[in-house]
């Protein structure tokens, strides 16, 4: 609280006339409107105060004549405070100063704004196309309101993404878009000298589904949780909870305590199965398929449990704005406890079998090393940061749902390598089991599952919500709009932040370690890629002609 006042005074004093306005939304958020020219200065002040950069959000105001807006958010993890810096530019000259030179982690957010909203950034080191497909026509910015959500510009064949030239003395090994160690399409062009990696360039965003645009045009508030859940195949519940929290915060809705506990149970079940999934995948990536199979065997119990609780293995569909949809009654609570007991026992024996295995140490220790300073520089989050000695966890730092009432530890190690992320994740499995048990004991016996919303959600409100996904902190930013739908909904998945640091982690490692290093951040490409408008076939498909693919996909879409 004191920090909030302090920052407010500081910003007011430093920025003087450039400080346009403020909005005190609750104790933990501070919205600040600053003048365009003072953006970099504001960011510098906040970073000096110990902020962690989260995400940049661009949007087009539908009303008020303020034109285009750019929002940067900064988290103060020790003070449970998030400062949201808003700045505006006229529609005919959307030029902002780039934060990337001082905050490298801002690079993608800004490139996304260039692609989707037509912003321009001064001093951006590499304003290349990030999100849009290579043959998307110039000058059409999908997230502007005048572009319809189902726009399909004709495809062209002669446009390709220009990858950088490799440094002299190295050659390129292309990983992806389809590669057995990448479970989703993404392209890493890795520069190698023999077996040593000397750099890499990333081109991703090949699975854009236009979810954000869809939510802003076609869907209504309570449709979005089900779409949000499908942002990610692993941590879907994270996104639906996060979205619902953001809308509830914007509308000032207080949901029942029982619903909050049920949300926590689902989130932690998701963390359990996600970490076990990761452990298996990590085993597979270092060629140890037995760990893969055994970890997934243990995980399967949790999937079946989720099926009994929610009606589906993965897409739980539990969350709506205002609460949850299904109850966890006594019977189900017993079921959960029983499954947790078995999972804990099996997990302990698996941990004992692998934690001292020298052959696994050989493949993970010292691999993908990144120092604590570098991790701070790149604003890493989640287990990737906690393996590098940075104790951040949104559940502790920015408590949401029922986490303020729960006691748990945040495992932190300082190995700084792939092994560290493994240790952190294995420890978090036990913490998740512990949290679910506490939830079942502390949950209030009654209370509505979902509350009645008896007033429409006012438009023009903004809110930001964070949820600690298994991979790190996920951020959702919601600007409420007219006609029962959000005007802007921005999703920052954890991989979005972590993936930007992967080229640094890969430096000077062996080519053989590429899969496990990329795997160590538990990349969720579909989370990261969620935005754009239309799926367009890749340029490089040789066997089936692109036109054929397109005819087929379009046919499917319209005629079935």
């Amino acid at each position, binding site marked *: 609280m004191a920090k909030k006042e302090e920052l407010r005074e500081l910003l007011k004093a430093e920025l003087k006339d450039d400080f346009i306005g403020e909005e005190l939304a609750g104790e933990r958020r501070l919205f600040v409107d600053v003048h365009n020219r003072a953006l970099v200065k504001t960011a510098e002040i906040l970073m000096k105060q110990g902020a962690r950069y989260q995400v940049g959000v661009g949007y087009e105001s539908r009303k008020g004549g303020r034109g285009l807006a750019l929002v940067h958010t900064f988290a103060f993890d020790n003070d449970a405070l998030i400062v949201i810096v808003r700045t505006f530019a006229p529609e005919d000259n959307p030029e902002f100063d780039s934060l990337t030179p001082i905050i490298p982690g801002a690079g993608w957010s800004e490139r996304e704004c260039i692609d989707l909203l037509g912003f321009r950034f001064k001093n951006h080191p590499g304003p290349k196309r990030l999100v849009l497909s290579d043959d998307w026509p110039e000058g059409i910015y999908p997230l502007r309101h005048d572009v319809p959500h189902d726009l399909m510009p004709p495809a062209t064949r002669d446009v390709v993404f220009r990858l950088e030239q490799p440094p002299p003395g190295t*050659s390129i090994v*292309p990983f992806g878009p389809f590669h057995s160690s990448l479970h989703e399409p993404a392209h890493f062009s890795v520069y190698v000298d023999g077996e040593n990696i000397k750099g890499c360039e990333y081109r991703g965003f090949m699975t854009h589904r236009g979810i954000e645009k869809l939510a802003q045009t076609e869907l209504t508030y309570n449709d979005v949780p089900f779409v949000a859940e499908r942002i990610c195949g692993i941590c879907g519940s994270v996104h639906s909870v996060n979205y619902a929290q953001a809308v509830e915060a914007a509308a000032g809705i207080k949901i029942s305590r029982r619903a909050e506990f049920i949300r926590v149970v689902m989130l932690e079940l998701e963390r359990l199965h996600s970490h076990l999934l990761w452990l298996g995948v990590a085993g597979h990536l270092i060629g140890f*398929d037995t760990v893969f*199979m055994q970890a997934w065997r243990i995980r399967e119990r949790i999937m079946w449990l989720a099926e009994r609780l929610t009606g589906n293995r993965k897409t739980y569909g539990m969350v709506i704005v205002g609460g949850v949809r299904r109850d966890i009654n006594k019977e189900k609570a017993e079921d959960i406890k029983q499954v947790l007991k078995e999972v804990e026992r099996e997990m302990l024996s698996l941990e004992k079998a692998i934690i001292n295995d020298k052959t696994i140490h*050989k*493949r993970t220790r010292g691999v993908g090393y990144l120092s604590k300073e570098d991790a701070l520089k790149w604003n890493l989050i989640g287990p990737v940061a906690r393996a590098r000695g940075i104790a951040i966890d949104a559940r502790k730092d920015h408590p949401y749902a029922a986490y303020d009432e729960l006691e748990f530890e945040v495992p932190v190690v300082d190995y700084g390598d792939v092994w560290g992320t493994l240790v952190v994740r294995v420890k978090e499995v036990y913490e998740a089991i512990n949290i679910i048990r506490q939830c079942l004991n502390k949950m209030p016996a009654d209370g509505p599952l979902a509350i009645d919303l008896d007033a429409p959600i006012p438009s023009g409100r903004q809110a930001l919500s964070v949820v600690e996904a298994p991979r790190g902190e996920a951020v959702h930013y919601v600007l409420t709009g007219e006609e029962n739908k959000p005007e802007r909904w921005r999703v920052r998945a954890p991989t979005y932040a972590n993936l930007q640091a992967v080229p640094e982690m890969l430096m000077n490692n*062996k080519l053989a370690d590429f899969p496990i290093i990329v795997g160590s951040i538990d990349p969720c490409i579909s989370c990261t890629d969620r935005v754009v408008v239309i799926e367009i076939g890749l340029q490089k498909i040789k066997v089936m002609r692109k036109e054929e693919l397109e005819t087929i996909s379009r046919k499917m879409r319209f005629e079935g």
Partner: protein
Amino acid sequence: MKVAAIFINLAYFLLLAPFLEGVMRKLTARIQSRQGPPLYQPYLDLLKLLGKENIVSSKNWAFRLAPLLAFSSMLAVVLLVPLAGAENLLSHSSDLMTLIYLLTLSGFSILVGALASGNPFAGVGASREMMTIIMLEPVLAMTLILGAVKSESFTISSALSGIGRNHGFSYFLMLVVYLLALQAFVSRQPFDIPEAEVEILEGPYVEYSGPNYALFRYTLNIKRMFYAWLFVVSFLNFVPSGNFWLKLLLETAGILILFVLISVIGATHPRFRIDQAIKYYTLLVVLSLIAIGLGVKGW
């Protein structure tokens, strides 16, 4: 009889090799709590691959030649060897050098095929394969040379039986070295580095498909069986030569036991990196040299 023995050799290796892969896959599956494919699955796989279209992705003629060369040289190797102690016409007229050269030729043609394909993954795989060949061929050669030293003869059958002639230090040291190298000879985890599916997509074979790939697969199967067989006849040669069929049965049983061992080790290890593996291979080469030294001394 000596001509018939050639065909027995051929049939023995060609028919049994895919079955042993089936054993390996089944066991690996069981260790991973899976059902696993049926034991005859590799035969079906080979048949299926043979019936498929041969996609030739490189204009280089070496690309087409490599699978044939690899397969035929591997076949030549198994034709030469004295199965169940029975010399055939061919093993009579060849010596250890022929055997080693043919084995190397088989590995070398995989390299040629990989490099001819021009795929960067195949290139990485080929360089790994090359390092493996350079480091592992000496170990094999030393094993055979130890037999030659002991039996003071360079013919295949006497060299093979020579290793186990007396059970001195050199015998035990070489036995340990061979066992330690076996996993690398058959390129299973932790030494399936040249293929490394999740890293470089089966490396040298990445551009191969259909019948060409079937030949490579078959070559690999026979190679694995050959290395296991070599261990059985040279180190576990306790059964006095007598009944040919009994001896053949015992050898087959020995091979099966070795494959169980290979599968279990393969399923419980992650893959090593090539730099880690090379350190390990270096140790093996040094140890095998010591074994030769001991053998020369008569210990």
